C-alpha cells in the first residue's frame, strides 16, 4: 500500500515538473525574441485630439503620406476612418525601414500587414507607432482587422516594395 502511494507520488512529480518546465522554457524563448532579437509589440505612443484629427487641424495627421526621413528610413503617416486608410497605398524600395504612425478619425480600426511583423490597433484619440523593415520585394496586403461597421470588409490597402 505504501509503495503504491509512493508510485502515484512519483507520477505526480513526473507530471508537475514538465508542467512547470514547458511554460518556463516557452517564456524564455519569448524573452529572447523580444529583447535579444528585438521583436517588440506596440506600446504607448501618445494621444491626439480626435476632433482635431477629424477637422484636419492636427499637426501630424493633417499631412498624411510617406516621407523619407533619412536614407532608407521612412515615416508613413496614416489615418483610418470608415472604411478606408489614407493613404491606402505606400511604395518603398526594398530594404527600407518604415515607421507607421496611425490614428483613427472615428471608431476603432485595425492595421495588419500580411508578411510583416506589423499588427496594431488604431484607436481614436491614440497614436499607434510601429516599425518594420521590408527586405523582400512584392505587394503586401494591409487589412483592417477590427470590426468597424457595415463596410469593414472593404477596408484594406497595400504596401508595395520594389
Amino acid at each position: 500500500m505504501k509503495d503504491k502511494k509512493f508510485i502515484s507520488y512519483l507520477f505526480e512529480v513526473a507530471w508537475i515538473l514538465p508542467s512547470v518546465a514547458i511554460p518556463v522554457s516557452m517564456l524564455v524563448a519569448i524573452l529572447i525574441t523580444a529583447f535579444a532579437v528585438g521583436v517588440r509589440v506596440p506600446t504607448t505612443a501618445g494621444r491626439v485630439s480626435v476632433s482635431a484629427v477629424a477637422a484636419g487641424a492636427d499637426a501630424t495627421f493633417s499631412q498624411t503620406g510617406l516621407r523619407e526621413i533619412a536614407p532608407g528610413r521612412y515615416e508613413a503617416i496614416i489615418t483610418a476612418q470608415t472604411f478606408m486608410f489614407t493613404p491606402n497605398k505606400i511604395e518603398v524600395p526594398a530594404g527600407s525601414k518604415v515607421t507607421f504612425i496611425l490614428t483613427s478619425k472615428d471608431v476603432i480600426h485595425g492595421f495588419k500587414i500580411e508578411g510583416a511583423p506589423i499588427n496594431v490597433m488604431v484607436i481614436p484619440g491614440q497614436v499607434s507607432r510601429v516599425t518594420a523593415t521590408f527586405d523582400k520585394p512584392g505587394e503586401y496586403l494591409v487589412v483592417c482587422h477590427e470590426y468597424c461597421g457595415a463596410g469593414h470588409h472593404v477596408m484594406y490597402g497595400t504596401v508595395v516594395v520594389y
Partner: protein
Amino acid sequence: MASIAARARPVAISTDLSVERKLAGINIFIAFAALAVGGLMGVLQILRYNGLDLYTPSKPLLPGGYYQGLTIHGVLNVLVFTTFYIIGFLTYIFTKSLNRPLASSRLAWATLWVMVTGLVLAAIPLLTNNATVMFTFYPPLKADALFYIGLTLVVAGTWLLLVNMIMTRNAWLADNPGQRTPLPAFMAIVTMLMWTISTIGVASEMLFLVIPWSLGLVGGTDPVLARTLFWFTGHPIVYFWLLPAYISWYTLVPEQAGGKLFSDPMARVSFILFLILSLPIGMHHQVTDPGISEMWKLVHAIFTFGVFFPSLLTFFNVVASLEYAGRRNGGEGWLAWIFNLPWGKPEISTQIVAMMLFAFGGISGLVNASYNVNLVVHNTSWISGHFHLTVGTAVALSFMGITYWLVPHLTGRKLWSRGLAVAQPWLWFVGMGLFSHFMHELGLRGMPRRTDIGGAPYVQDEWRFFLFFAMIGGLIMFVSAIFYYLNMIMTLTRGEKLAEAPDFTFAKAISGPEDAPKILDRLLVWVAIAAIILIINYVPTILDILRTATFDVPGRRVW
C-alpha cells in the same frame, strides 16, 4: 410548525431541492434556446464565406446582415448560453453536494428574474439591428442604451447567486463544524467568487463609461479605458465558462465512468490557483493596443502562462481518474485501458471528446498569450479557430454531455435516442476538428476575423481552399447540433416516463479531502491574495490611462 422546528436543535435541515431543480431546468432551457439561434447564425456565416449568401433572403428578420448575425452569434453563444447554463448548473450542483437548498429561495428566484429581464432588454436592440457592435461592444461603436443595461442586469443577476451561496455555505458550516466543504460545492463557490471579482471590470465600464454615454448624459468616452475594463472581465470570463465543465470532469465524470477522482487535494489546489491566476491576465488581449505600456503586456503574458499550470494539473488529475476507471472496468496496458471506458454512455463519451479537442485549444491559447507571437495571430481567424475549441467545444460540448444525464434526472424521462447521443459528439469532433483547423490555417495566412469575407475584395486565392473545408466542418457540426436538439426535444416531449427519476452521486476520491491542507477551504485568505495580485497588475495601467484621458471621443453608429 416552523417555529417549533427552529427552536428544537438539532433540527432536521430541509433537503428539498425542488426550487433548485426548477431553476436548473429553466436556466438550462434558456441557455440552449439561445445557443440554437446563435449557432444557426454560425451556419450562415460559414456559407457566406464560401459565396452562398443567405442574408439577402433573411433580410426581413436580419436587417443588419452578416454583422448583425455575427453579433447575435457572439452575444447568444458566449454571453447568454454560457451564463444561463452555468447559473442553473452551479445552483443545482452546489445545493446537491451540500444536500440542502439555497439559504433564500426568494433570492434564488430573483437571480433568475433579474437575468431574464436583462436578457429581454438586451435582445430588443440586438434583434432590431440597433446593437450591431459585437459581443465586445468596443466604444466608440454605440448601441442602444438598452443593450448595455440589459447585459449589465444579466451580470448583476449572477452576483445574487454568489450571495446566496455564501449564506448557504455559512449555514452549512455552522451545522457541520470542522467538516470540509464537499468538493463540488467548494468548486462552485470558488468559480462564482472568481467571476464576481472579475466583473468589477465590465461593471465599471458599463456604469461609469458606457451607459451614461449611450444615454447621452456625457458626450464622449475613452476607448482604451473601456477596452481595458472590458478585458479585465473578458479573460477571467473564459474561466467562468470553463470551470463548470471542470467541475463535471472532476466530480461527476469519474463516478459515471465507473471510477474515482484521483486526488481531491490536487483538485482544490487547482481551483484556488484559478481563483488567483485567472484574474490578472486580461491585457494579453490588448497586446497590439496603443496606450498601454509594453511592460504590463509582458507581465500579463507571464501570468497567463501561470494559469496554464492549474489546467495541466486538471489534465493530469482527470486523466488519472479516467485511467483508474478504465482499469477497474478490466482495462490493462499503458494506454489500452482507454478502450475500457464506457464509450457507449453518451454523457461520458461527449465529455471525453470535449477534453480531447480542448488539449489543442489550450495549446493555441498559449500561442495567443505569447506576447510578440500574438502579432502573427491577433484579430485573425486563428483566434476564432482557437475559441471554437475552448468555449465552442470544451465548454459547449461538455455542457451538452451533462444534459444527457441531467435532463433525465430532472424530468424523470428517459433519453429519447441513445444512438443519436452516442454519434453526436463524434460528429462534433470531426466537424469542429476540420473547422477549427482551417480557421487556424486561414489566420496564419492573414484572414481577419469578424469580417464579411464573402464580400471582401482582397480574398486571396489560397484562402478559398481552406474556406471550403472550414465550411464542410461547419456543416458537420450543424448535423451534430440537429442530432442534439432533436434528441432533447423528443426527450422532453415524447421521452418514456420513468417510474423513478435516475439519481446521481458525486465521485469519491482515492486521495480524499482529509489529505488536503485546511487552509485551502479558507476562501477569504485566497480572495485577499487574488485581490492584491489583481491590484498590482491593473492599477498602474488604469491610473496611467486616466492621467491622460480626455473622454472626448463621440459615439458612432456605423452599421
